[in-house]
């Protein structure tokens, strides 16, 4: 039991010497020290070690140290701020293309799924559909144009019929193009940002 207490106290002696223990723990160590010769010897040994370490002189810096440091600093402020790009921002810059690829894949999947749904509902020109695949969309269009014809709006009904045949494919095409343009613009923006960052870094390295 005594040995266990001594082992525990021994673990705390360094922190005791450094003044890093809270009041309760310090009081416990002091109570233990009063009754344990081994721990008192250990504490003395730690004190001697600390004295020995701190007594060992360190070399003085040579004359002109600060001047040399200042002369070596990057002169341009911009260079420093790009070099000091926060870690998170630097990581984001590095992983941006992967995120872009993910975005592109996501958009393609959504567009493909939407096309399938529209295809299933019959929202495509007749030539694009397999025979007999009119679907709900086709029926809806027919019903709407029929209703307009009956109401004496034959021209409007014709326009609706034509639009109903072509708008889904036109919309899908526009969305597809929009997605491609968005991804391309983001990629070019990243490329520009990345290379200007690299150039600024190279400038910094040279100036050091």
């Amino acid at each position: 039991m005594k040995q266990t207490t001594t082992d525990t106290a021994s673990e705390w002696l360094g922190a005791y010497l450094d003044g890093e223990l809270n009041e309760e723990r310090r009081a416990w160590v002091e109570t233990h020290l009063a009754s344990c010769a081994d721990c008192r010897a250990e504490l003395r040994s730690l004190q001697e070690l600390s004295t020995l370490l701190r007594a060992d002189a360190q070399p003085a810096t040579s004359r002109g140290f600060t001047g040399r440091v200042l002369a070596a600093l990057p002169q341009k402020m911009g260079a420093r701020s790009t070099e000091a790009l926060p870690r998170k921002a630097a990581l984001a810059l590095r992983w941006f293309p992967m995120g872009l690829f993910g975005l592109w894949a996501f958009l393609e999947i959504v567009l493909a799924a939407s096309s399938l749904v529209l295809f299933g509902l019959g929202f495509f020109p007749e030539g694009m559909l397999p025979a007999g695949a009119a679907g709900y969309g086709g029926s809806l269009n027919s019903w709407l144009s029929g209703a307009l014809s009956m109401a004496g709006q034959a021209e409007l009904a014709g326009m609706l019929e034509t639009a109903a045949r072509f708008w889904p494919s036109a919309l899908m095409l526009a969305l597809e193009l929009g997605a491609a343009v968005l991804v391309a613009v983001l990629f070019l923006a990243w490329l520009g940002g990345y290379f200007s960052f690299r150039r600024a870094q190279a400038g910094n390295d040279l100036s050091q």
Partner: protein
Amino acid sequence: MGEKELIACAQRGDTHAYGELVERYREGVVGVVYRMCGDPVLAEDAAQEAFLRAWQRLDGYKLEHPFRAWVFRIAANAALDALRAEKPVSPLEAAENAAAESSAEAAVEQRQRAGSVQRAVMALPAPSRTVLVLREWGQLSYSEIAAALSIPLGTVMSRLNAARSQLRQALVEMEAE
């Protein structure tokens, strides 16, 4: 000018303010890097590199944290990098260099002891050595060391205990030789 004002000015690109900070922390940083790498010449280069890195990262420094702990951490890492780059320098060689740097009038015994201490410090594993150096020569508190190295407080204490224990053992063995 107060330290926080100097740092704020340096963050805005004022090199004179930064020069003042370098003057204030020069001895401390050199002390840390010297204990980390054991070679006075290498220590000065590493100290210079540490101040350059600190300047480059100054934008990321938050004023509410102790500047001393922040710059000492950079110094310890710069010293370790310098050691990696200068691998051929053995701890023994480094200790001898350190001893030789002492003034000619210094007692032989003192030089030998300084060499022994530095040799023993250099023999410590880098994580324990870093904690010991930041505590003994950097004079950082345990919580400052924990924050500077991003390690738990308990790890600081255990590394420090291990370092001191190994150091005492090494010094006893050296004296016995």
